[in-house]
Structure formats: C-alpha cells, structure tokens
C-alpha cells in the first residue's frame, strides 16, 4: 500500500535522505529505527507529502504523492513528531475540525468523533482547552485526529515520545492491534518498542537504509545470537569450561559476570550447530557430571547491540 522508491532529499549540500526504498503492505507494522538526525522524520514527511522529494517517488494506495496528493492523503492518517495541536481550542473543537477536513458531516461526524474519543480515552477532557492538558492527553488527542477517518495507512513519528510507561504500553498495543488490517509506519528510537509492536524493522543511518528485516532476523545478526548462557551453582567455572570445550558443536567459551555479580558462562556454537542443539548437549553433559544448573538459556540476540553495530553514533 505504501511504495517508496529511491527517495532522496537534501537541504542545501547536506543529504538528509539518500536513495531510500521500501514497501509496506496491509497487515504490516514497519518500525523505523535510527539515531537522532538519521533522516527518519524527513522520510516520513516525504511519505506524507509535507516535503516534496528531490528525487524518487512515493505511491500511496496507487496514488502518487506528487501528482495526486489529495487522493493519497485521504487514505492516510499522520501523527507528526511531538503531536502538534491548536492549543487554544478544546479537544472537541479540534477533533471536529479534523473530522470536517476529512469530509465528515452531520451524524457521521459525531460518530467518528465519538469513536476516537472512546478509543483514546478522551471523554473526561473533551471540553477542556488543549493548552491545559497533560502531555499524555495532548498526545492522545493528536493520535485521535490521525485515526478519525479510520485510515488504511497510518504514519506516526515517535508516537510514544514523552509518555509514561503505561501509556507507552497502551499505544504499542493499539498499534499492534490496528496493524492487523492497516499498513503502519512508525518511527522510534526505543528498541523494545520495535520488538513489541513491529512485524518489520528498517534501520536508517545518515539517510541510508542499513538494515531491513523482521525483528527476529535483526536480532539474529547479534554476535551473541544462538549462544547458550549457563550458570552452574555446584562446580567451579574452570572445571565446567574444561568439560565443555572439547564437545563437538562448541566453538568458544566466555566467562562473564551479570548485573548481580554472579559468574556465568557463555557458550558459542559452531556455525553448523542447529537451533537448540547446543543447549540440549550442555544439559546432557550437566546430567552426567551432576552439575546443579541454575540457568540455561539460548540467547536470541539483542537489538541494541545490532543497532550499535550498524549505526554510527554522532558522539563519536
């Protein structure tokens, strides 16, 4: 539903977005990840038609964003960064305005407003002026305007920014639920959010896409993915190391301490070792040698490590 092709945008001599292409289909939630200033917002502004691209094209549900901007925009809802609002209006007046611009009138309009008010829990502040609201309510008001026409396509720039953990969870669940029958793009720099809500992740760094895959695929790129984490209470680490290292399937052993200061062992598998094989191998050895295992766990890999690996921090 969203086809982005070779999108390029530069401001002066600085290339903000460089040849970015991706597609999002109905039922997909695409997480847009990247360090600050990587070009996430600029890309989204081009997808929503706010910025015209220097090169490349955006096609929304078959409508080109440059040639048929109005038709394309009708299909989508947009939550801009920081959730801008007309502060001197009441929540109701603001939603009424958004509904009218989306073509609702009369009973249909009241229904649409009622629907989003219920969905975003805005009932209690409906006739309050927006500038008296807390950040959470303001954010939900802006979110409500983005979904007032129940769009097929939803684009959100940092939808959970500035919310408390409960509200963040709420929004994530909402995104996940809506993602079942919509095409959604949202940007964030919170990695757990991506794991919680996305079916696909794109990591963008300095204007370029540096990774594109499911959260599991990306985590698999982590150096510790597939390794087994092991904690044994009864025996010394040296002894366990000696027994494990000759085993087929074990490539390398590494001792480390966790946050609580307990000693652990990380066992890295050979390349050809299958999923879960290493863990069962270790547990058999443990049984034979009568170890008291306190923890045994195959690592999935960590997104933050992958993220750090492939993006370059601007503080370096």
């Amino acid at each position, binding site marked *: 539903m969203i086809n982005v092709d070779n999108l390029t945008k530069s401001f002066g001599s600085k290339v903000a977005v460089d040849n970015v292409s991706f597609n999002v289909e109905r039922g997909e939630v695409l997480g847009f990840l990247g360090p600050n200033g990587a070009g996430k917002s600029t890309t989204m502004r081009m997808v929503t038609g*706010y910025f*015209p691209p220097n090169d490349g094209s955006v096609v929304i549900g078959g409508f080109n964003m440059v040639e048929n901007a109005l038709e394309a*925009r009708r299909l989508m809802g*947009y939550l801009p960064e920081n959730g*801008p*609002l007309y502060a*001197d*209006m009441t929540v109701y007046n603001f939603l009424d305005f958004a509904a009218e611009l989306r073509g609702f009138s009369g009973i249909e309009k009241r229904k649409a407003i009622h629907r989003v008010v219920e969905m975003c829990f805005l009932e209690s502040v409906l006739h309050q*002026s927006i500038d008296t609201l807390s950040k959470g309510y303001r954010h939900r008001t802006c979110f409500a*305007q983005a979904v007032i026409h129940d769009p097929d396509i939803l684009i959100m720039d940092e939808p959970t920014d500035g919310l408390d953990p409960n509200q963040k969870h709420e929004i994530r669940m909402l995104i996940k639920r809506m993602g079942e029958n919509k095409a959604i793009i949202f940007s964030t720099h919170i990695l757990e959010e991506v794991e919680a809500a996305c079916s696909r992740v794109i990591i963008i760094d300095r204007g370029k896409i540096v990774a594109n895959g499911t959260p599991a695929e990306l985590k698999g790129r982590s150096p510790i993915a597939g390794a087994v984490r092991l904690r044994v209470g009864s025996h010394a680490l040296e002894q366990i190391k000696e027994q494990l290292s000759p085993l087929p399937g074990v490539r390398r052993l590494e001792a480390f301490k966790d946050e609580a200061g307990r000693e652990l062992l990380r066992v890295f598998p050979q390349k050809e070792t299958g999923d879960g094989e290493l863990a069962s191998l270790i547990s058999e050895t443990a049984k034979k040698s009568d170890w008291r295992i306190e923890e045994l766990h195959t690592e999935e890999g960590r997104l933050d490590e992958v993220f750090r690996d492939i993006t370059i921090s601007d503080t370096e």
Partner: protein
Amino acid sequence: MNEAIRHIRTISKRELISYFSSPVAYVFIVIFLILCGFFTLNIGRFFESNQATLAAFFFYLPWLYLFLVPAIGMRLWSEERRMGTMELLLTMPVTSWRAILGKFLASWLFLALALVLTFPLVITVNYLGDPDNGMIVSGYVGGILLSGGFLAVGSMTSALTRNQVVSFILSVIICLFLILAGFAPVTEMLEDKVPWLIDLVSSFSVMTHYYGMQRGVINLRDVIFFLSLIVFALFCTGVIIRSHRA
C-alpha cells in the same frame, strides 16, 4: 469545487474559534474601538467642527490599520510554523491555497466585524445632523478593502518567519510604503523632483485608491486594485510556504 469551499469554510471556522477562545480577539476589538473613538472625536475635533460627517474617522482609519492589521496578520502563519500545526494542516487532504484562503478570510471577517462595531459613530452623526450616508457606506467598503490589502501583506510576512515580532515589523514597513506612496506630503515632494514618476508611484498606493471611497465614490478600478493586491500577496504567501518545504 464544492469540497474546496467546504474546506475553506472549515479552516476559517477553526481560525475564528481560536481567535475568540483567547483574549486576543476581545483585546483587539476594544483597543480598535477606543482608538477609533479617540481619533474621530478628539484628534479629529468632531464636535468643534460642527459638521455631521465621519470624514475624520475615515481619514485616520488607514493609520490605525497600519499598526493594528499587522498585529492580526503576524500570527497567521508564523504561529502555525512555531507550533508545528502547519505540518498537521498541510498533510490533511487540503491544498495549501485552500488553507491560505481559509485563514485569510477568517481574519478578514474578524477585521470587518471590528469595523462594523464602530456603528455607534454612524448613529451619532445621524442623530446630531443629516450626514451623507452613501458616503459613509462607501467609506466602510473602502475600509474593509483596505484592511484586506494590509492583512494579505501580513499573511505574506508571517509566512516568512516563525518570529511574530519580525513579521509584524516587516508588514508595518510594507504597509507604510503602500500608504506613503500616495500620501499628499510625499507626492508633493515627488512632484517637485521627479514629476514623471509620480503617477507610477502613487498608483501603487492604497491611499490613491482609498481616497475615492473616502469621498463616496466606489470606482471599479479601485476595487480591482485592492483585490489584486490581496491576490498577489496571498500568492506570495503560497510561494513562500512552498519554498519552506522544498
């Protein structure tokens, strides 16, 4: 087309709701009315002149507008840019000219309302004497057109910057030029130095075109002048807004 009108109406309505839900509208109207009264009755020596006419009122109106209209115009787009709502508005399924026109019409309507609220002056002159009411009506039409021209200039300068003070100063300067180019002391000076330039310069002035209406003559040419000033300034607004996004 139908949809365009609906969108313009919705955007105007929103703008007006914003005006009247903050003190801005009320403060503006009160100050405007006080100044109108002050200039007409005190500075204009209304009672001493012993004539049933609002000539003084219409004479001072452009100078009042010079400062008060930019005060309304300065927030039109700079506020939207500063608050980020411009992104919200322009990613809705509306074209930018609908947004520009909607916002402009709302402010223009507001200024017209403020002008209409000076009606006690009209009642007063009619009570005291027997004024030429046709002249008064034509003066009001001129006032509305004049405020529209200045407001369109304000719309343009407010699109230039997110700083309202800068926008205000720029639009006062441009409006001042539009007044002075046809202001008698300036044209007389020009007449001495460069007589061939005088028609060209004064034809750009709002005063030249407002003058007739002040005297009770609504000339199609003068109306067209004000409308083209509005269209031109709003067109510039559109170009400036587009260039910010490119």
